[in-house]
């Protein structure tokens, strides 16, 4: 991508406008205790390092948003990310979504007070779908992200999992996402447990099945192995945003390269000049 100076995107003809829906590049940070971790299929968690160092690095590389997930929170019944988020919010000025163990409007209030902009809810929403409506009513739909962990169980069929991919629910992903959005979820974080941590590319069929059914933005998560992987899930799957972990944590690509790959393929992205 060109550096320095200003790029003015004037002179687009009308036909180009429909492809200039800007997608968002999101760094996903899975947290266990004080550590940034990474697993495969959400299991076998390896310690990567300090969440704050990584978050700041991604911010300085021009990441569009951050997602923090406390991946053992459901197990212990509470989210421990308050301190991590609160300190991140002093230096990081892009939207932050926080999930893992959010079980009530009070939990959401606390994490928003710590500096989060949105909360992502999975396990507790499955247990009590009314929580989606309560959080949306209190803070607005834009604040209520429905997090779905999906595992394929048949052709074009996916099942909802909870507890960070550990527990089955027998819920069908498509039925559940429609219900969640009708209850007030303003955005969907869709994680393919099958692809998560594998670097094999996104589960585009899953993303496509979901984006075909809901009108709210869908964040595809799980499987991004190389910058080009995002093209398929955006162009064919209809993803509005992609969440990335492994590719960034293991420094296999920087945000700038990924943005450049998206731009080169004609996708709309945030215009970012490194300062």
């Amino acid at each position, binding site marked *: 991508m060109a550096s320095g*100076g*200003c*790029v*003015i*995107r*004037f002179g687009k003809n*009308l*036909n180009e*406008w*429909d492809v*200039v*829906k*800007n*997608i*968002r590049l999101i760094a996903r940070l899975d947290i266990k205790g004080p550590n940034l971790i990474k697993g495969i299929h959400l299991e076998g968690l390896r310690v990567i390092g300090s969440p704050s160092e990584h978050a700041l690095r991604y*911010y300085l590389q*021009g990441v*569009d948003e951050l997602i923090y997930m406390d991946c053992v929170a459901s197990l212990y019944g509470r989210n421990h990310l308050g301190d991590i988020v609160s300190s991140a*919010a*002093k*230096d990081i*000025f*892009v*939207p932050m979504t926080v999930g893992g163990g959010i079980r009530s409007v009070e939990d959401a209030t606390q994490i*928003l*007070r710590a*500096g989060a*902009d949105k909360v992502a809810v999975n396990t507790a929403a499955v247990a009590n779908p009314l929580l989606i409506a309560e959080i949306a009513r209190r*803070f*607005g739909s*834009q604040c209520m992200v429905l997090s779905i962990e999906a595992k394929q169980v048949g052709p074009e069929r996916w099942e909802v999992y909870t507890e960070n991919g550990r527990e089955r629910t027998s819920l069908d992903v498509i039925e559940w996402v429609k219900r969640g959005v009708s209850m007030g979820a*303003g*955005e969907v974080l869709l994680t393919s447990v099958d692809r998560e941590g594998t670097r094999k590319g996104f589960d585009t069929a899953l993303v496509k099945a979901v984006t075909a059914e809901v*009108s*709210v*933005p869908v964040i595809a998560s799980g499987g991004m192995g190389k910058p080009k992987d995002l093209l398929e899930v955006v162009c064919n799957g209809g993803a*509005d*945003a992609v969440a990335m972990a492994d590719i960034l944590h293991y420094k296999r690509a920087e945000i700038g390269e990924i943005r450049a790959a998206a731009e080169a393929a004609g996708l709309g*992205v*945030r*215009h*970012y*000049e490194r*300062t």
Partner: protein
Amino acid sequence: MSAPEVVVIDYGVGNLLSVQRGFEHCGAKVTLTADPEYILAAKRVVLPGVGAFGNAMQALEQLCLVKVIRELALRQTPLLGICLGMQLLLDESEEFAVTAGLGLIPGRVIQVPKETMLGESQKIPHIGWSSLQPLGCPDSWRKTLLQDICPGESTYFVHSFMAVPTNPIHRIAECEYGGHLIAATIGRDRITGCQFHPEKSGEVGLKILRQFIIQ
């Protein structure tokens, strides 16, 4: 030199922490308050807001802040409205029933179009990063809060309604969504409104906050 002061109107609408952190990062001393006297005496005032237009106007009225904000405009106190806080600056909004706003910038607030210019349905709210463009020559941003911003730089939006100032001269910057031009920054005298969230727009947003605290 003492830190520049910013008063953020705390009227129970939305999360003010990010706005506060953003200004603090830029070196300002931030006070969150709904006290009319304190706000009237302020050197510069921020009107934030997330949520519904009607609720926000009601909250401002109950706190006797509508008159206070209009008085700030008369006194030429620098005022920055963010997101819903920008929309409140206009005459009225069509959100739910038509509701009167602060009337500091002529115009109304309408829904973001549900279809692109090509007639395809598009997602509402408009969430994400969009490029800011001046209306005329790039020079038009001189002496505005966008003074240090390059045309084309992106900021973070999340909104379902948009401001339509009657007089194009009050439109400082636009962004494009599905081919429609949306007022991204509006201004009149010492009043500025940003539809996007400068406090969530990375270094570009912080430049806008810095410009606000030095004026």
